């Protein structure tokens, strides 16, 4: 049951997958678990389709966490989101509306191989775990491997670097699997949200160039309201804006790719903190971080449902 699982600790990959299986068995009216492929090391890439089952056509929101292995607060938030959605469906009119009108495709751990490796060997691993035939270094930066101005800016061609873009776009099976899924379902996926850490930012396209997106007005408005709502919980400040201005220019990111491929509302969160703990955000901060972020995500979703074309 939801109450038997501890959402205020970090969980290993196996624990997260067991949790997903349990939810799939228990909440059949709201959860459907499926796999979109396998990782480099052969692990299943599980997705939770969350929303009230309906025969009617429903649009969807995609949420992924854990593209970078060491950013553990990401998968913790994905689990928190699912828990909150199921727990508050009856009591929260906004959540009820969200789950009635939309499906959420949630990928709690994108980079399953890297995440597992960060639990067992190297806590600060970032990349995937694919091998390179010419170098002893492993892994590709899964957020530089998408086909959008691939490897032009802010990415490295060298396999030993942490921002290695890969031998070619979508070389990583994890990236390819998600890209295939999003391509197939892009007509009804309305928003793309990706969760990273750390910087306390809410970013939108473009990351690969200094330019304004055509639907800037609605996206900026959604981001502004989300950050304001987030701050209202514990007073934590998040910066927001186009990734190229707010963070740095980088090409090959999933957020830019999703936008370019027809998902009109594409965001990337950089969760807590700003460096005091960095990737080692203590477990006692999981709850406040996820609580404030939950409000931001609900805000974005409701704004997109009501106010954006």
């Amino acid at each position: 049951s939801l109450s038997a699982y501890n959402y205020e600790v970090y969980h290993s990959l196996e624990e997260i997958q067991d949790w997903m299986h349990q939810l799939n068995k228990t909440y059949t009216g709201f959860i459907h678990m499926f796999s979109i492929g396998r990782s480099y090391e052969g692990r299943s890439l599980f997705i939770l389709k969350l929303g009230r089952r309906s025969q009617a056509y429903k649009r969807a929101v995609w949420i992924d966490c854990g593209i970078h292995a060491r950013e553990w607060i990401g998968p913790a938030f994905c689990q928190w989101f699912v828990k909150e959605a199921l727990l508050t469906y009856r009591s929260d009119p906004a959540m009820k509306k969200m789950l009635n009108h939309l499906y959420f495709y949630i990928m709690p751990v994108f980079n399953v191989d890297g995440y597992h490796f960060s639990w067992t060997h190297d806590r600060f691993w970032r990349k995937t775990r694919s091998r390179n035939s010419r170098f002893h270094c492993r892994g590709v930066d899964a957020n530089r491997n998408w086909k959008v101005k691939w490897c032009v800016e802010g990415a490295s061609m060298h396999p030993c670097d942490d921002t290695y873009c890969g031998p070619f776009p979508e070389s990583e099976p994890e990236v390819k699997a998600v890209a295939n899924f999003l391509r197939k379902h892009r007509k009804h996926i309305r928003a793309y949200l990706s969760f990273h850490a750390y910087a306390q930012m809410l970013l939108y396209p473009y990351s690969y160039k200094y330019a304004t997106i055509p639907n800037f007005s609605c996206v900026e408005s959604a981001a502004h309201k989300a950050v304001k709502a987030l701050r209202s919980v514990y007073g934590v400040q998040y910066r927001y804006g186009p990734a190229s201005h707010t963070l740095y220019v980088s090409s090959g990111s999933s957020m830019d790719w999703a936008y370019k491929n027809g998902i009109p509302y594409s965001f990337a969160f950089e969760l807590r903190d700003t460096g005091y703990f960095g990737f080692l955000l203590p477990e006692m901060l999981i709850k406040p971080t996820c609580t404030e972020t939950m409000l931001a995500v609900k805000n974005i979703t409701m704004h997109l449902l009501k106010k954006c074309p």
Partner: protein
Amino acid sequence: HLYNNRYAGDKVIRLLPKTEGQVHALKKMYHQLQVDLWQPSSISYVSEGTAVDVHILQNASQALLAFLHEANIQYTILIKDLQKTLEKESSLRTQRNRR
């Protein structure tokens, strides 16, 4: 010990290069000492006024600190001993579970 105690004595240091010369020196040092960059994600993003968080191995931290003093680069030690921080968090979790 978690992770076979591999992070014993490792530090996380925030650097703040203020001049172009300091940025250049930092980029050169990065390639020599092979630090793990926490933020930004690539050394190419480092510019004047950018906060740079690096994870440095225990046996390289003296060399890094000496370099920072010599180059007059402002820095703060964010995490004094990564292994201790990891172990402390783990023991806190054990205590919470017992409670």
